[in-house]
């Protein structure tokens, strides 16, 4: 029996759709394989899935070989967001979806052993990928719903648990998509705790700073300790124009992929200001591996 669900994998700060194909009965009896270049977190899903399904009251097909393919098979899959679509695929193989296909909705979510859905990284990028692919909806963990709902032209559902996801598939009419007013969210998020007025004197430096911000120039402050150089630099975001929605979305995507969105924050509305220590190495500044680091967002 073969069942397919759709999910997404993060690549840089973008996400690309992934087909999660679950096959029960074709492999050798005790085998449970996940293929498609999964990383360790994805491979560990195998250990989690049996407990999750059992604790939610679903049967894991013990004794029948299970093969899960994450397509496209030649791109590396990372993260724990595949827990939910894989579990849904196994539930689907047992006929619990009464013939419904899950080809118009994307699912993301890490699952706890008791079946609770946990937050994932990159939900915003995944929602953008789902919209661009023409999917009708995306279902994400509740903690990620605000960032995903910023994306227009696609329905976004919040999920708390695996049984709730099964209900969403079987009776979508009893679920309301989450709507956020992106502009309102942006306005609320655009609050700074510092002001240029905090800096006394320094009229020349403030004028230079204004010119730098107006023209987009880089600026170097030279002076003795305590003169106010860093104070001035920290107040640069407060004199720049408010971020546009596109800029806010791009900034939020980077934070989402890096896992640094606070709480259930939907949008980042303040321009990122980062102040790395002067002894930081090039690799530390740019980022080791393929994860965004200081120069991108810190």
């Amino acid at each position, binding site marked *: 029996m073969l069942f397919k669900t759709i999910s997404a994998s993060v690549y840089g700060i973008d996400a690309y759709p992934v087909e999660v194909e679950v096959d029960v009965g074709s492999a050798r009896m005790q085998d449970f394989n996940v293929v498609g270049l999964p990383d360790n977190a994805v491979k560990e899903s195998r250990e989690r899935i049996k407990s999750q399904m059992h604790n939610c009251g679903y049967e894991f097909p013990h004794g029948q070989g299970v093969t899960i393919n994450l397509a496209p098979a030649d791109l590396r899959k990372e993260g724990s967001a595949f827990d939910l679509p894989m579990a849904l695929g196994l539930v689907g193989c047992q006929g619990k979806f009464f013939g419904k296909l899950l080809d118009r909705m994307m699912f993301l979510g890490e699952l706890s052993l008791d079946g609770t859905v946990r937050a994932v990284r990159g939900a915003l990028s995944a929602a953008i990928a789902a919209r661009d692919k023409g999917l009708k909806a995306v279902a994400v963990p509740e903690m990620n719903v605000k960032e995903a709902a910023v994306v227009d032209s696609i329905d976004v559902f919040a999920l708390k648990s695996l049984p709730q996801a099964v209900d969403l598939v079987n009776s979508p009419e009893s679920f309301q998509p989450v709507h956020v007013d992106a502009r309102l969210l942006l306005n609320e998020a655009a609050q700074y705790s510092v002001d240029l007025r905090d800096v006394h004197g320094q009229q020349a430096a403030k004028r230079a700073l204004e010119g730098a911000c107006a023209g987009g120039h880089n600026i170097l402050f030279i002076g003795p300790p305590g003169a106010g150089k860093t104070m001035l*630099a920290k107040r640069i975001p407060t004199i720049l124009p408010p971020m546009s929605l596109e800029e806010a979305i791009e900034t939020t995507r980077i934070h989402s992929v890096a896992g640094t969105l606070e709480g259930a924050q939907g949008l980042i509305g303040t321009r990122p200001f980062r102040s790395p220590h002067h002894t930081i190495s090039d690799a530390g500044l740019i980022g080791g591996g393929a994860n965004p680091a200081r120069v*991108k967002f810190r």
Partner: protein
Amino acid sequence: MRQPLEDGSVTIARAAISVTFPSRFMLAAVMNPCPCGYFGDPSHECHCTPPMIQRYVSKISGPLLDRIDIHIEVPAVKYKELRAPSSSEDSAAVRGRVIAAQQKQIARYKSEKKTYSNAQMAPKMVRKHCAISADGGKVVGKRRDPPGAFRASSRPHPESGSHYRRSGCRSRHTSQASK
């Protein structure tokens, strides 16, 4: 820092993949003028010898300094000024002027590709939009300005491409941009 400052993107290549991230940012750098920090400060004595200062300042590479358009001295603030209640403008007032200046730039460069601000101008555009007046030329020609003043460039070669952009045009187009 050179690739992001120059190209606005960073490419990280590893064995299996190569990923390009957007990396457009405004760099604000701060530095002391010497190892102890007090060179030129009237209220503290600087104990650094000229070779120490030279060694310290030369840690910043020329190419990096060249990519920073504006170098401004930030002298120590006098105690009286620190104690006085702040009578200067708040961020919102300054932001208003910055927004107005940016809108002028968008209008100015609407026929140019991918140029939205003065800092993004190519040398050809600088020649088009920033003709130097006679007085402006005198400012550029000076190697040193009084402390605290708006310094055009700390490097010679005022006629070469990038310096022309940064040293020649700045005094005029910045005041334009800020209006």
